[in-house]
């Protein structure tokens, strides 16, 4: 099987679907931000054309080391998307779902709901309520605000909707990765007087492993690190300094290959892993195969994108990948056409 090219379709959400073409007729799909399309085209042209996509791990390594600036956001996103598309192809070539290619079992993934829509209390509550009813998921990740009072409000809403007394319920707080340790500690300690938080994600600036450790030492919740980290080396200071209690694997920049490698490293350090949301909930496939999976993020934006057709089902608060070959995500061309997005 050889890679022959890349087809791109713009999606109404502003993202793009990229489809790796092969000489067998099989195609591999991934979703990228529009800004990463050019980098993806260049990577295919310069590094992937003519290669066998079943060599995904090796090609991931080559893409990781060859470009002049492999950690530039557009390159990292494009590389990860192409890796995902190659794993999609690898599974399709075996005529099996990706979770099986990865050696996983068809087990439902524990999941948490993440509101990434506009800061609208009513809409957020509505979505959580609907998802709770439709999926049974009782865990949520809330974006931390600058005001502890707003966070208390959001946590109160979420705890009420999800059922705070259930042992299944977990509340996570996501910071935007710009905080100072002292501020974060004060902020979280205030919230912990009323709420039992499972995790605080990205509490300090990227690379501030000492700050992450300081936060971890001062609060009860676990400190979760990893969103946006595109390379094993970026995790190293956190591992060295015992500064992350949970590792977040961001499929959109680590790809499937990078997630497999970092998950094994996390297992070696006895650290649980969370999987960042990805269109079509395809991170569920990884949950089924990794050694210490904790939760998969289900994001509002992905859940309401009409162009995305995932192959997952929800059952008693768990997300289960389907049996379609590959990762199962497909694009509803009709929805794309209806919204007028260019093909």
């Amino acid at each position, binding site marked *: 099987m050889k890679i022959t090219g890349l087809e791109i379709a713009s999606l109404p959400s502003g993202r793009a679907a990229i489809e790796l073409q092969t000489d067998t007729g099989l195609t591999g799909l991934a979703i990228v931000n529009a800004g990463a399309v050019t980098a993806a085209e260049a990577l295919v042209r310069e590094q992937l054309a003519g290669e066998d996509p079943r*060599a995904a*791990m090796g090609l991931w390594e080559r893409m990781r080391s060859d470009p002049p600036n492999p950690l530039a956001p557009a390159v990292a996103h494009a590389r990860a998307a192409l890796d995902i598309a190659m794993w999609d192809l690898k599974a399709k070539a075996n005529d099996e779902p990706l979770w099986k290619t990865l050696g996983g079992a068809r087990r439902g993934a524990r999941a948490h709901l993440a509101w990434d829509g506009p800061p609208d209390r009513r809409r957020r509550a509505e979505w959580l309520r609907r998802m709770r009813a439709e999926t049974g998921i009782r865990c949520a990740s809330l974006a931390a605000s600058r005001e502890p009072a707003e966070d208390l409000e959001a946590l109160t809403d979420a705890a009420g909707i999800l059922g705070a007394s259930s042992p299944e319920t977990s509340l996570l707080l996501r910071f935007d990765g710009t905080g100072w340790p002292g501020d974060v500690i004060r902020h979280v300690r205030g919230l912990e007087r009323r709420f039992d938080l499972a995790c605080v994600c990205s509490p300090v600036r990227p690379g501030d492993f000492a700050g992450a450790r300081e936060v971890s030492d001062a609060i009860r919740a676990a400190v979760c690190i990893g969103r946006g980290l595109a390379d094993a080396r970026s995790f190293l200071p956190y591992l060295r300094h015992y500064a992350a209690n949970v590792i977040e694997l961001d499929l959109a920049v680590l790809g499937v290959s990078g997630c497999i*490698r970092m998950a094994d490293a996390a297992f070696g350090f006895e650290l649980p892993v969370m999987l960042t949301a990805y269109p079509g909930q395809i991170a569920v496939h990884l949950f089924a195969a990794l050694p210490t999976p904790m939760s998969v993020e289900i994001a509002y934006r992905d859940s309401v994108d009409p162009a995305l057709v995932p192959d997952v089902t929800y059952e008693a608060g768990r997300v289960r990948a389907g049996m379609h070959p590959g990762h199962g995500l497909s694009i509803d061309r009709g929805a794309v056409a209806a919204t007028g997005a260019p093909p």
Partner: protein
Amino acid sequence: MKITGFRFETYLMKLDRPIADCNLPEGLDLLPGSILFLETDENVTGIALGFGGGGIEALFPLIEGEDPREVTQLWLRINDYLHKLGNEGEAHAALGAIDIALWDLKAKIAGEPLWRTLGAREGRVKAYASGLDYCLDDDELFAFYRRLAKQGIDGGKLKVGLDVAADIRRLGIMREALSVASDHPVLMIDANEYWSPKQAVRYIHRMEQAYDIAWVEEPARRWDYQGLNLVSRQVTASVATGENLNSVADFYPLIANRAVDVLNVAASHSGITGCRQIAHMAHAWGLPVSMMNCQANFMAHAAAALPNHVGLEVVDCGREQCLRFDSRIEDGYILLGEAPGLGIDIDEAALARLQETPPAGRGRFPFPRREGAGRYIHPLQPGEVPWDHQAD
């Protein structure tokens, strides 16, 4: 596709030449072997090669009726099952064997060589020569490394530990033998945990005055993270260790305490899944790994897919009497073929012959630890090795 049964065969094999380290200078030429056959309802069989053990029967109910393609989750299931007992001893050997046979099956089902299933770009792995040579005289030592150097192998690992002057001389012999492959052969030494840390520092310091040494293997006990760290800081060579550990959990203290510079990884690290976990953990830490020797170099499949692999140990001592395999050494690399799975077929007739008429020879497997180890050097006794040494 379901796992339906298994067959576990054991046998004895006589090597082409004796092998030894400083814990067993006189060496042995008889090794136990085992083959696990994992059977499925679709007439595809996975195999795993090992050195005995057993214990498959106790773990088999955990995988019976399951799809072998779900190998990493089956590994976890067994690992979790062993939680209280520990991933050790016979259970450890059984977990590793089952995992290897599952990966063989997974690749065979996909109709591709295992290196491709594991995502490698090519079935090609850098090799280095390792004589397990403490019992080889100087001429045999030269002949072994020259033979492999003629296949392009430009690195060698010498067994050392009991006589520094002789070890320096023999390192020179190895270097000379390898010089046809490279003007700058890579030299490594292996003490198999004989020394205490400070003994190691003094001994290696003297060897480093004569030669540039890439790594020293097991200069202190396998679990002694402080001792290994001390050696690593005081000598120029890297410290390699890990071959006798069981799993990624055992490597944690070594990595976290910076006690290892090169990780020796192996099939005995809880199979291919466990070995890969360790390599990936090392990769995150920026550390290289080196694959330990194995029959027919089958772990080259796993090594080919690792981003931080530096070289596979080739011993080439004749352990493949009942195996037909699809790999060869060329230009210093192990080249894996396109045969599905591990690319290894069992010669059942040869296996039956070995079982019916076990070979005779010298066997003290597993290697014991020698007198004085970790405390003082108990000198080589007359007749203990066939080369010149400082006998009392």
